[in-house]
């Protein structure tokens, strides 16, 4: 039965109303998740800001909330992140260079590629168990900074490898060909041309990977980073605590004051992460502009 003009226009009206409603619905959902971030940050800052002073930064943990601070955790995190950077950046970037520049398209590189992709999806706590069994027990490194750093390096290696490969892929083949035509060897080409050209992209990936390792808690709990450390580590073999561990410890206590301390710790942690992310975004934007 053919529709009358009036029915048709009503039908069209209905379809357009549906479309408008859908657009508004999607926008509302998206903005509410942005709002959620705002609520989260607001919640954390009103709880924690009052505790955030020099005393908090420069004190060791304590049973008494008013004397407790995050000094050992902050220093532990700085130690940890430095060691992780020293271990994971050379290995990760080397792997990416090998896969992109040297390995060719053979079976081995395919296997490594699939393997790295799968490693990226392994839950962090499984890396914790690996670290506990291999580094803490088997190599008898004890519950030390170096055990934590090695475990964390394995955890973020896939991230660094994947990001570095993406960066290396963007280097135009012409640059390599130009170097080869002047008689440069493969490594000379890679070192003097490919690496500098992809450096900003690699740095972005590395910073994001390192900022992930700052926030990871579960693997450190597994390898036994301590929750109550009233001293500063002096070398890689010392035991340690880290910021997320200290925050976990405070959150899991029942007293309200410790929750507020946790909020103060979270502010410090997020400030560090934000600074790192901002650096990464800054590098990315600068290179995007240059590439144009």
């Amino acid at each position, binding site marked *: 039965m053919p529709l009358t003009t009036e029915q048709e226009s009503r039908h069209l009206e209905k379809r357009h109303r549906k479309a408008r409603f859908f657009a508004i619905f999607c926008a509302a959902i998206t903005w509410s998740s942005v709002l959620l971030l705002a609520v989260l940050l607001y*919640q954390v800052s009103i709880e924690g800001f009052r505790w955030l002073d020099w005393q908090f930064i420069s004190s060791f943990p304590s049973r008494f909330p008013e004397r407790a601070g995050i000094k050992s955790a902050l220093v532990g995190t700085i130690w940890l992140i430095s060691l992780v950077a020293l271990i994971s950046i050379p*290995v990760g970037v080397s792997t990416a260079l090998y896969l992109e520049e040297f390995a060719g398209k053979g079976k081995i590189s395919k296997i490594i590629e699939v393997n790295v992709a799968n*490693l990226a999806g392994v839950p962090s706590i499984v890396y914790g168990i690996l670290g506990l069994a291999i580094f803490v027990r088997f190599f008898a490194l004890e519950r030390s900074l170096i055990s934590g750093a090695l475990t964390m390096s394995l955890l973020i290696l896939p991230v660094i490898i994947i990001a570095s490969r993406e960066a290396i892929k963007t280097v135009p083949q012409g640059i390599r060909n130009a170097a080869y035509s002047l008689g440069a060897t493969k490594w000379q080409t890679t070192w003097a041309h490919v690496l500098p050209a992809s450096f900003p992209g690699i740095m972005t990936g590395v910073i994001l990977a390192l900022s992930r390792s700052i926030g990871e808690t579960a693997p450190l709990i597994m390898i036994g980073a301590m929750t109550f450390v009233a001293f500063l580590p002096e070398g890689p073999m010392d035991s340690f605590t880290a910021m997320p561990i200290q*925050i976990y410890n405070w959150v899991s206590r029942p007293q309200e004051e410790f929750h507020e301390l946790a909020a103060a710790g979270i502010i410090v942690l997020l400030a560090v992460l934000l600074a790192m992310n901002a650096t990464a975004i800054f590098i990315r934007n600068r290179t995007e502009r240059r590439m144009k």
Partner: protein
Amino acid sequence: MAQEEYPDAAGASQPAESPAARSIKKSGVLWGELAIKSWLASCSFISIVTTAAIVILLLSETLNFFENVSPGEFFFGTTWTPLFEPSSFGVLPLVWGTLIVTIGAALIAIPTGLASAIYLSEYASDRMRSTIKPVLELLAGIPTVVYGYFALTFVTPVLRNVFPDIQVFNALSAAIVVGIMVLPMVATMSDNALRAVPISLRQGAYALGATSYEVTTRVVVPAGLSGVMASFLLAISRAIGETMAVTLAAGQTPNMSLSMFESIQTMTSYIVQVSLGDTPSGGVAYQTLFAVATLLFAITLVINIISQMILNRFREVYE
């Protein structure tokens, strides 16, 4: 520049050198080249070694575990009390706990994540997009222990106001924060998938008189479905492996209750519980750590492989 280290690269400018000397230097370069290549190759084998170590470690300890506990009891038992007498090793309560948190998180993250992705790729202006995307990336970068704090100090109190009979530690609060946590991942990955759909498909549909709703739901989303599905699966796999937020919010009570108002225990939070306590290494209780971790590893691995297969097999390639 590299030429200074390798004089032969500028060979033409050094006519005094004999051909023999040059070929010796040349072979020095090649040896260096080979050494560097071997170093790079050995670095890339670290990833293989890592995988091998994970698999061998988990499997060997799990086999030890199965010498003490029958696989039947482990996989089908419904009581999980490995740390005290009478000990019982049925893993189902832990799997159940993981399952309901994951389902709850997926129910939150998948619809909202997809809606956000649709907004970002289909409706938002470039300026909106460049504001929202970094915010989502920021949300994705917040450490999980912070979400645990958020669950305990914000979500649970709100829930207790709405449902007075909810426990302090409950599965619902954990599911909500894990959902919030994986939402940005679904949104950004699906957004990328939807944006990869060529504009000509949309224009074709608009030319036939379709509304924006019809274009989105019947053309764009079906065309980008492989990437969208992959983002769902990766989010689910992350929710399963999520540890700290769940440990803090859902408590340590393995049970198979249907109610999300009660405290439960997931596979991951059991692993944390054991490692925080002073369980002696070598005993059966210590071996449960590896048995549970193997199960966790296997489940997430299967999901990740399926999502990669979807991406590779069903990817629509547009010229």
